[in-house]
């Protein structure tokens, strides 16, 4: 069995849950080789080994932070050496960009937004949800090394402990890579709530909330349920909540166990980001709001009445 390159997201001593998901999927296809930037500490290597990385390859360079495109060259060199069965990366903007450039360099085919990956007789079989998640598509790469960008939450990370070997390479920055330079990065402060893409429960607010302060109603319910907070584009555009929380076509796609849409009409672009949620609940005063077409349970009413009552009721039942 040959190797499968798994691009472990930029790490700061912490391996993301998505990376563990990638390792879990990679084991179905071959021997996982985790590729990460920087001098990963023992903890990181141990974690990657616990999830089945037979080899951890470190790309050591201080310049990766400043010249993100350089990463592509390093991974391409490694791929030329290993001739992997596949390359797996996260289907985030950064991950898809690496996938795109690698495909051009390696002459491989790319599939993005994978929600499942299985080994097949002709190579990896990839499942995607297409057209605003209205369709399930199965595809394969038929030319070159398959490069697959996987959505988070595609699989539950499973342990398969091994002791990884460690290999290293430096980085040669070519002229092209230096042309795109990072001037600054401001890491978002943690809200203490789960990440939107990883949460089992997401509570989202829309224009119906009418203002930034009213998002407290959404946060209260999210906290009562241990969930993440989402928002519609209308709410984000109004400046009521940070853009990073936007759910939908041009925001993040979520697929939690429970999605609660509050004061959201359910436009196609919003539905594109949440309609694969397992259970959908809506609170809206308009009985004709399209969100009710998706809802497993809906309350037609004023959210300013329904939400506080719901939060109180949850507290009362738990007391």
């Amino acid at each position, binding site marked *: 069995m040959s190797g499968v390159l798994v691009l472990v997201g930029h790490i700061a001593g912490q391996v993301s849950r998505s990376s563990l998901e990638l390792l879990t999927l990679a084991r179905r296809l071959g021997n996982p080789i985790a590729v990460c930037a920087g001098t990963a500490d023992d903890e990181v290597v141990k974690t990657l080994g616990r999830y089945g990385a037979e080899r951890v390859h470190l790309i050591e360079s201080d310049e990766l932070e400043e010249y993100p495109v350089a990463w592509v060259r390093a991974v391409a060199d490694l791929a030329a050496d290993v001739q992997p069965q596949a390359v797996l990366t996260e289907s985030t903007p950064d991950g898809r960009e690496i996938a*795109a450039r690698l495909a051009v360099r390696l002459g491989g085919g*790319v599939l993005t937004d994978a929600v499942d990956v299985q080994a097949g007789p002709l190579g990896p079989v990839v499942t995607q949800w297409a057209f605003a998640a209205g369709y399930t598509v199965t595809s394969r790469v*038929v030319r070159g090394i398959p490069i697959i960008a996987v959505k988070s939450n595609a699989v539950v990370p499973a342990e398969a402990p091994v002791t990884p070997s460690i290999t290293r390479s430096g980085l040669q920055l070519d002229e092209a890579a230096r042309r795109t330079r990072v001037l600054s990065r401001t*890491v978002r402060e943690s809200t203490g709530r789960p990440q939107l893409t990883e949460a089992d429960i997401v509570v989202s607010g829309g224009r119906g909330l009418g203002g930034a302060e009213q998002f407290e109603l959404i946060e209260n319910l999210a906290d009562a349920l241990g969930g993440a907070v989402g928002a519609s584009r209308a709410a984000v555009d109004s400046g009521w909540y940070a853009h*990073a929380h936007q759910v939908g076509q041009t925001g*993040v796609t979520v697929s939690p166990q429970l999605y609660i849409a509050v004061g959201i009409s359910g436009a196609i672009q919003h539905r594109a980001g949440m309609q694969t949620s397992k259970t959908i609940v809506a609170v809206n005063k308009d009985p004709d709001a399209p969100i009710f077409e998706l809802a497993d349970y809906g309350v037609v*009413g004023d959210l300013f009445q329904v939400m506080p009552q*719901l*939060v109180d009721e949850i507290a009362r039942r738990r007391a």
Partner: protein
Amino acid sequence: MKIVVCVKYVPDMSSQPRFTAEHRVDRAGGQLSELDEYAVEQALRVVDAVPGTHVTHLTVGPPAAAEALRKALAMGGDAAVHVSDEAIAGSDAPATALILAAALRRLEPDLVLCAMASTDSGTSLVPAMLAEHLELPQLTFAGEVTFEPTGGTVRVRRDTAQEVRHLEAALPAVVSVTDRIGEPRYPSFKGIMAAKKKSLETWTLADLGVPADQVGAAARTVVDEITARPARAAGTIVPDDGEGGRLLADFLSTQKFI
């Protein structure tokens, strides 16, 4: 400054997509991808700010894709190029990027503007692939674009779930923009009339020197199966008669979320 905006002709996403027997999207009755309007708008804002800027809209697609170019021209811009060839049908992202890159080599822009993704396949792959082919810097998913007054440098702000990033590159560069960059203008009646007179050239693969056997059927990916996801079963919808919150709590309890 010379700007080329890459645009795509896509099916109307508010209606059901149709597929051909080869599992390709049936492109009849399409439109300019809604997200591309943000890239067109951005180009037109540069025109307003930097006199003498020339904007060309570029697409790769079937004959009907010219409609997307006409719409873009009606919004503004000077000329359009349509790469059309029977061999192109079925091209995936790498093949499309190969063709676009060949056309861009010929057009020699200072700035290539794209949308963050197409509304149909939504892969976001093409802008980065163009940058790779053309050895240009890429500034993608820009929520804000600024040019140095002296020209020559472009800066973008990019919001991701984890961070806000500012990136910089010297022109020429490939920039892709999100729908936060500024609302696209509507084509005016005057714009629509003027668009009819603007130059719309059609180029073939041979014109660009792109071998037909590297595109279309040479796609690096195949779709084995497309199935519509089953419609969701009708849910329970209750009016709030003062007990809505409690009823909802009941539902969440039976589903074991509380």
